[in-house]
């Protein structure tokens, strides 16, 4: 019973992390039809920026946990917006309208560039930003010690998910965005500035990626290569849930998070296997993912 509960807690924590990582990817794909290979790099940039900012804030030995949270989120916003805007204006806006598979390759090139760009800016030594993590302490739930920081992470994931949903479904801008998702050409014919919507979407996507990185930074050591590991996990979540679907990403994250937690507790040698195993299984049964739309074939 205890181990069942542990799987539930671990799985939910991991799922909320997966959702945060994958949300930006699915938003960008949903609107722009770009499978952003460089999403992991934005995650890493967010992590590096947050870790540097936290390190700088705590450099003199004092500092409050609440303030450090604001710094985390502020760092993510700055990193995601600045780098996202640079990438969208400097590169992607010239590539719109190309094949989906070609966009994968273009963003792959972007990933290679950003990976080394980070090494040049932040160096190759690890960064640590454990202060917010340790400051919150631990609590005991039904005999299990759980870090409060991880519980806050669950809250943030739910907030981000609900906010994205409400924004898409309940605001005017969201309505316009859904029109673009549904039919780009008709939306343009109705006077929607599709390119501006693309810029906006890309910035939201990259900022979400950076936010995921910034929130992860306190619980890991930030080293080169973290983005490359994360991107394939985000792919798995998005593919399972159906590409471009927010609720799909949430369900996909829960499914994968719980499966992985179960594997870690009962059969640790299958830890990595289980994520891609579930992904392949879902794709075999529902190629468009759990919440994806089927597309008619066109000649």
């Amino acid at each position, binding site marked *: 019973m205890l181990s069942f509960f542990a799987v539930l807690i671990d799985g939910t924590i991991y799922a909320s992390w997966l959702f945060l990582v994958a949300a930006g990817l699915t938003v960008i794909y949903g609107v722009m039809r770009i499978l952003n290979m460089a999403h992991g790099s934005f995650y890493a940039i967010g992590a590096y920026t947050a870790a540097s900012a936290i390190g700088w804030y705590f450099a003199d030995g004092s500092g409050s946990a609440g303030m450090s949270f604001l710094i985390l989120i502020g760092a993510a916003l700055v990193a995601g917006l600045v780098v996202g805007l640079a990438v969208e204006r400097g590169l992607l806006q010239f590539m719109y309208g190309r094949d989906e598979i070609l966009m994968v390759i273009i963003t792959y*090139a972007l990933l290679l560039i950003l990976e080394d760009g980070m090494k040049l800016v932040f160096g190759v030594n690890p960064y640590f930003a454990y202060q917010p993590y340790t400051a919150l302490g631990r609590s005991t739930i039904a005999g299990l010690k759980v870090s409060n920081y991880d519980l806050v992470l669950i809250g943030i994931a739910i907030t981000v998910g609900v906010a994205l949903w409400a924004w898409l479904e309940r605001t005017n801008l969201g309505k316009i965005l859904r029109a673009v998702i549904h039919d780009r050409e008709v939306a343009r014919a109705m006077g929607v500035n599709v390119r501006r919507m693309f810029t906006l979407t890309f910035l939201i996507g990259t900022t979400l990626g950076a936010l995921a990185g910034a929130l992860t930074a306190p619980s890991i050591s930030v080293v080169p290569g973290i983005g490359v590991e994360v991107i394939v996990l985000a792919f798995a979540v998005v*593919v399972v849930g159906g590409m471009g679907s927010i609720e799909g990403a949430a369900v996909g994250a829960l499914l994968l998070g719980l499966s992985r937690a179960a594997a870690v507790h009962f059969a640790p040698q299958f830890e990595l296997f289980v994520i891609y195993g579930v992904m392949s299984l879902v794709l075999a049964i529902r190629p468009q993912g759990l919440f994806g739309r089927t597309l008619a074939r066109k000649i």
Partner: protein
Amino acid sequence: MRLDKTELALIGLAVVLLLGGLFAAPGWLIFLLTVALAKALVVQGVVMQMKAGLVSFGQGLFYCVGGYAVGMGGQFLGISAGLVLLAIGVVAAVVLAMILGLLMTRYREIYFAMLSLAFSMILYGVLVKSQELGSTDGFNVNSWTLLGQTISGGEQATHAVFVLTVIAAAAVAFFLNRYYRSSVGMTCEAIRENEVRVEYLGLSPRWINYANYVAAAAVSALGGGLTALATGHVDPDMAYWTTSGEFVFIALLGGTGSVFAPFLAAIVFSLVRTYAIEFLPNAWQMILGFTLLGIVVFLPKGLWSLFTRARVDAPVSAAPSSTSNTRTGGARA
């Protein structure tokens, strides 16, 4: 059997490479060429699928299967004959591809890319967790024999793998040159152009993709096996997705215009990487990234189009005269 120009050039190049490699080139260059040619075989597998409009971001799966078959055959089955080890790798990859292909051939575009990536990551996940196979470190390949001769390190080993690789590469290129002109090969290009119309012709794109997928797996596994023999080591990174990304990179660098293109691209890639890592260890990926962008934008048909473009474009620029029009037609036919 009549040989066409490509095939004659192929045999000529292979002979030149062998003679030059064995009598003139320094050891490091032979090793670099060997690994580049072996990887080019994996790239040939990627290109085979690109011709059918599919981009595999998981060709490392078969590369890894070929490599691990060589390593495990020596380690656990006590087989030392190099050719047998390579054959085991190819057979293992073909069997795996025949199973996975049933699923893979249902997908196109980014779904194909993602699913192929997922399968290679599954293998990676299994290998890092298996202690008997050295986990993330992998393990060394035992010493092996070639036609009865024991190959154990030093210059002799470098030369043996080099000869084996050149011959294998030439043989694969020979096969591919004919394959691309066979009905299956031609239909692959038709599928890329318009899959629904291929169905109208009464053909099954799915089974043609299937045959192509399995053949590509065999070619890639051969490349993996040769790499394992050349470097004497295998590790799970062979199946990691960045390795597959590198193969896609080389495939795009060369283009799909000729069976020579992947070899050329792989050699250019290896040389550039060797020097870039030496001089700019923390920026060589960035160079690769900008190169890739440059290719996508300015040379969408790859480096190989530099050689063919002169032939096709020159008459077009002089289009108004009637004689050049017929030449244009001739060059395109």
